[in-house]
C-alpha cells in the first residue's frame, strides 16, 4: 500500500513532515552535496537578522550526554545578503517552499527583517525566533513574556501576508500562556521548541566550556520536554504546531505528531549524522506500515 506522508501547514502542502531546523542546516549549500534536498518536506534556514552578525566568541560548542550546547549567537550574513546570495543559491538545489527563520533585538528589527524577507518568492512561511537564549539583550526576553511575544507577533503580522510561525522558547514556566498570547495576536502557527538554556564546566581548567558561559541545550536529551510542550500547547491552541527538539528517528516524528505536531523539525541530530533527515524520511513509510498508519496527517493530535 502507498503510504501518504504529506502534511499541511496553513494551506501549504509538504511532501512529508521532515524539516531541518534553523541553524542546523546552514542555507542548504553544504548539505546539497550530501543528498538530494528535494526529498525534504521543507527547510528552515539559518536565523537571519537585519544586520550581519559574527556571533559569539569560541568555544561555542559543548558536548553533553545525548545532546549538545551551542552558543553560536546567530552568526549570519544579514537579511540583505541572505536575499541576494543565500536564497538564490538555495533555490538551485531546493525546489520547494522554504521557511525563513528571523530574529531581532528590538520590535523594529523583527518587522524590518520580516518585511524584507517577505519579498523573497521561495519563502512561504516566516518563522520568528523569539527564544534564542544566546544573545544577551534580545531573543530570550521576547519569548518569555506573553505580552512581548504578542507584540513581536503583531509587528511581524503587520508587514507580511505569509503565514507566521512563532518559535517559542522552552525556558518559561508556562508555555501555554505564551502560546495563547501569540495565537491571539494573530500567529498562524507555532514552532515548539527552541533550545534550553544550559551550561557545562571544564573541571580541569575550572572554567565554563562555552566562552559565553551558557548556551542552548538541544539534541535527543530534550525530546521528552519538547514533546510535553507540544502536547500542552496542542490542547490549548487551534493553530498548527511544528514540533522540534531531540527528534532523531521516524518513531520520534510519529510521537511528536501524535502529541499534536503537524510537521517536525530535526536540529542537532543533523550535526552528528548528516544523513539524519534522509534516513528518517526513508524509515517513515516502514514505521507507518508497522503502526498501521495510512495517512500520516491523520495522527496529528490523536493523544487527547
Amino acid at each position: 500500500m502507498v503510504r501518504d506522508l504529506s502534511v499541511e501547514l496553513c494551506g501549504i502542502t509538504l511532501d512529508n513532515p521532515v524539516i531541518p531546523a534553523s541553524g542546523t542546516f546552514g542555507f542548504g549549500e553544504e548539505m546539497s552535496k550530501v543528498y538530494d534536498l528535494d526529498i525534504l518536506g521543507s527547510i528552515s534556514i539559518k536565523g537571519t537578522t537585519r544586520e550581519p552578525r559574527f556571533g559569539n566568541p569560541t568555544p561555542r560548542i559543548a558536548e553533553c550526554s545525548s545532546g549538545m550546547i551551542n552558543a553560536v549567537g546567530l552568526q549570519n550574513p544579514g537579511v540583505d545578503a541572505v536575499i541576494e546570495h543565500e536564497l538564490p543559491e538555495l533555490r538551485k538545489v531546493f525546489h520547494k517552499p522554504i521557511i525563513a527563520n528571523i530574529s531581532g533585538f528590538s520590535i523594529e528589527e523583527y518587522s524590518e527583517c520580516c518585511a524584507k524577507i517577505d519579498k523573497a518568492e521561495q519563502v512561504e512561511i516566516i518563522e520568528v525566533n523569539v527564544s534564542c537564549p544566546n544573545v544577551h539583550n534580545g531573543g530570550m526576553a521576547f519569548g518569555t513574556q506573553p505580552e512581548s511575544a504578542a507584540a513581536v507577533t503583531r509587528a511581524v503580522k503587520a508587514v507580511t501576508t505569509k503565514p507566521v510561525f512563532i518559535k517559542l522558547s522552552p525556558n518559561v514556566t508556562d508555555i501555554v500562556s505564551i502560546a495563547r498570547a501569540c495565537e491571539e495576536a494573530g500567529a498562524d502557527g507555532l514552532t515548539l521548541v527552541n533550545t534550553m538554556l544550559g551550561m557545562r564546566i571544564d573541571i580541569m581548567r575550572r572554567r565554563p566550556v562555552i566562552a559565553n558561559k551558557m548556551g542552548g541545550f538541544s539534541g535527543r536529551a530534550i525530546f521528552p520536554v519538547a514533546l510535553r510542550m507540544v502536547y500542552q500547547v496542542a490542547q490549548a491552541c487551534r493553530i498548527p504546531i511544528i514540533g522540534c527538539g531531540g527528534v532523531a528517528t521516524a518513531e520520534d516524528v510519529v510521537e511528536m505528531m501524535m502529541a499534536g505536531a503537524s510537521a517536525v523539525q530535526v536540529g542537532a541530530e543533523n550535526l552528528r549524522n548528516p544523513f539524519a533527515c534522509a534516513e528518517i524520511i526513508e524509515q517513515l513509510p516502514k514505521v507507518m506500515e508497522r503502526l498501521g498508519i495510512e495517512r500520516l496527517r491523520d495522527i496529528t493530535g490523536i493523544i487527547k
Partner: protein
Amino acid sequence: MKRVILEVASNRPLTPLVYEMQLTGDTSAVTRPGGFVEISLDGLFLRRPISVCDFDDGRLTLVYKIVGKGTEQMAGLQVGTKIDVLTGLGNGFDTTLCHSHALLVGGGVGVPPLYRLTRNLIAEGKQVSVVLGFNTQAEIFYADEFRKVGAEVIVATADGSQGIKGFVTDAIRQTGIDFDYFYACGPLPMLKALSEATDKPGELSLEERMGCGFGICMGCSIQTASGAKRVCKEGPVFKKEDIIW
C-alpha cells in the same frame, strides 16, 4: 565529504598517551594532507575530529592523544572493529606555496598532519626540515618516521631530555634553517610564537571545538583578516597573514 564505515586494522601506543590507528576501507574522499576526519563513537553525541596523518588507497592512519572520553574509547578499539567516519573534511595544506625548502613545525599532537605533508613535499622534489616540539623525551613520537621518508628532523623538548632544550622557536633560531615557506600545527601559543619569530610566509592549522565538522552549524567560526571563517570548512589550515592573534 563522505560517510564511510572503516575497519580498525591496527591500534598501538606510540607513547603512554599517544596512539596510532590504521583504518581500512573507502578512503577515496581523503585527498590532501592537513584535512581531517570525524569519528562517531558509542554513547557520545558529537563526533571527534582527528587529522589525517597518512593515507593511501584503502588505508588511513590517525595519530591521537588520550585527553578525554572519546579518545580513551578510541584507544580501546580492537582490531576488526568497524567505525563510522566522515572523511574528506577541511581544506588541507597547499604544497605549491613552497618553492624549494619547507620548514614544518609540529607541537605534540600537532605533529601527525605534517607526516603526509612531508611525503608530498618530498615527492614534489622539495627539501623538508621538520622541527618537532614535545615536553619531554617520553612524549616523542614519529621522529624516525619523518627521517625515513627523507626529512631533516630536529627535536626540541621543553625539559631538554632529548634534542634541543626549549621550544620549537628556540630550535629554529639555533639551527638557522634556510626555508622559503613554513607549515605548522600545534598549540596556539606555539603557532603564535612561531608566526612572530619569522617574517617568512606560512600556513598554520588551527583547532576549535566543532559541532558538525562540515560547515553547517557555525560552531567553529573565527574572525580572520579576510572575514569570518569556519575552521572546519575554510580551515583548519589558514595563511599566516589571515590569522588574527
